[in-house]
């Protein structure tokens, strides 16, 4: 993967020298092994720190609206960003929702090989033992004090990466990597189908059980590019929708609200799930709305600029099988 990393660096150097971009949002290696952290590069910053590897999990689009707003100081310089397939869909979503204009961003698209779930690796070894990490096409090779261990990449992907159909970015100014195109259609998720097949009581029990883990840190909201609201309903005081307590009822309230706000917008990037410190399986619920929106309205978020988001439009013959008729 080294070569892709240097390709990205060369490109950024060129963009800076041609004054095409003013700041670049990428990744650097984190302080803990097997982790990366967002890196905001200015022209004079050290480009060597910039990283691209299989642990670049953050959806960087979340920073775009704020960085763009800050940079809009009268000149036309752009913000550069590194986008995997799902990240590019988030950027499209932001543009469609008028949080950005296409001209504000220079997108370096990167064909995504699938991101590795650090937690899956760390369930097998201890982070403090790690001395050196290397990778080849198939494996992540971790060397530690007394030996080494190989992890097959295929078996350690994030859940949302496993059957990803959107590995090639949808919009970009430059594409890096081998652009064998992905299928780019949503196929409904097995996980959702299995959950729907359970009884009502069981479903509520699982929903509740998942959310008992939640500590209401709102990291899931903060990590999501769609959650750009200046004032989130969770913190509104006029009206105050629900209380700031550790009552499970309030926690459930927050999650129903947040997840429903993603209807027709969620690109299933998994950023909310990865941000969660308590391993709440949020995807089980966000993904249901992705499937439902696709089935009902045939809409794929972040895959075109023309089609109006499903909840901002209507058809006179929309299905209404759920309407109560007097019996």
């Amino acid at each position, binding site marked *: 993967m080294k070569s892709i990393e240097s390709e990205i660096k060369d490109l950024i150097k060129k963009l800076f020298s041609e004054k095409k971009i003013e700041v670049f949002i990428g990744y650097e290696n984190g302080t803990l092994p097997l982790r990366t952290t967002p890196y905001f590069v200015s022209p004079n910053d050290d480009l060597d720190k910039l990283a691209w590897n299989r642990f670049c999990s953050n959806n960087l689009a979340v920073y775009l609206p704020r960085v763009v707003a800050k940079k809009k100081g009268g000149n036309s310089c752009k913000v550069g960003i590194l986008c995997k397939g799902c990240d590019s869909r988030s950027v499209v979503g932001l543009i469609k929702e008028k949080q950005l204009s296409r001209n504000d961003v220079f997108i370096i698209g990167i064909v995504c090989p699938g991101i590795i779930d650090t937690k899956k690796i760390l369930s097998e070894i201890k982070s403090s033992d790690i001395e050196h990490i290397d990778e080849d096409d198939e494996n992540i090779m971790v060397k530690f004090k007394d030996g080494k261990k190989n992890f097959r990449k295929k078996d350690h992907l994030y859940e949302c990466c496993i059957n990803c159909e959107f590995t090639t970015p949808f919009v970009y100014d430059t594409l890096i990597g081998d652009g064998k195109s992905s299928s780019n259609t949503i196929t409904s998720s097995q996980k959702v189908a299995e959950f729907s097949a359970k009884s*009502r*009581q069981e479903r509520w029990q699982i929903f509740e059980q998942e959310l008992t883990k939640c500590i209401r840190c709102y990291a899931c909201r903060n990590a999501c590019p769609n959650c750009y609201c200046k004032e989130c309903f969770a913190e509104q005081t006029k009206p105050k929708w629900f209380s700031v307590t550790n009552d499970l009822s*309030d926690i459930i309230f927050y999650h129903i609200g947040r*997840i429903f706000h993603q209807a027709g917008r969620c690109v299933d990037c998994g950023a909310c799930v990865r941000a969660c410190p*308590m391993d709440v399986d949020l995807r089980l619920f966000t993904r249901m709305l992705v499937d439902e929106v696709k089935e009902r309205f045939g809409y794929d978020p972040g895959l075109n600029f023309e089609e109006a988001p499903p909840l901002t*439009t209507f058809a*006179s013959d929309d*299905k209404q099988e759920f309407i*109560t008729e007097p*019996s």
Partner: protein
Amino acid sequence: MPDFEPKIVAFLCNWCSYAGADLAGVSRIQYPTNIRVIKVPCSGRINLLYIIRALQKGVDGILVSGCHPGDCHYISGNLFARRKFALMKKFLEYIGIEPERVQFTWVSAAEGTRFAQVVEKVTNDIRKLGPLKYFRKNDYNDKKCNFSSTSENPNFLSGAVNK
């Protein structure tokens, strides 16, 4: 639960359904008294948060009613709403809330009888379900979310579910 009388909040749009309820009243049509009406300008004004807030604070069911498609005072408010309602209904059902608890319908200003029939049906449905026994604000008094708990301790909630 033979003598359980549910509390139901009915969100009625100003132009059709509220007038429909009015007509039912002036026509002296009898219907169950379980509903508490809240007038909204348009069914398009309905937000999922209204619904879950009402459930959290103690009602047993919700009825939302607007003008029939094509009759909206604001031309298309109910057509936008219809898409949202469809997703709300599916989503709430998916996470395990009985579909009968939250119902959507259309009632025009001329349909006093239909209004009474819908209220009758919704009330009966919810009466059959019994009171909402989960999600309510005070259901979890004994089970505060435990900040020190982790996924290794899945049992600390047991008993709070469907008691």
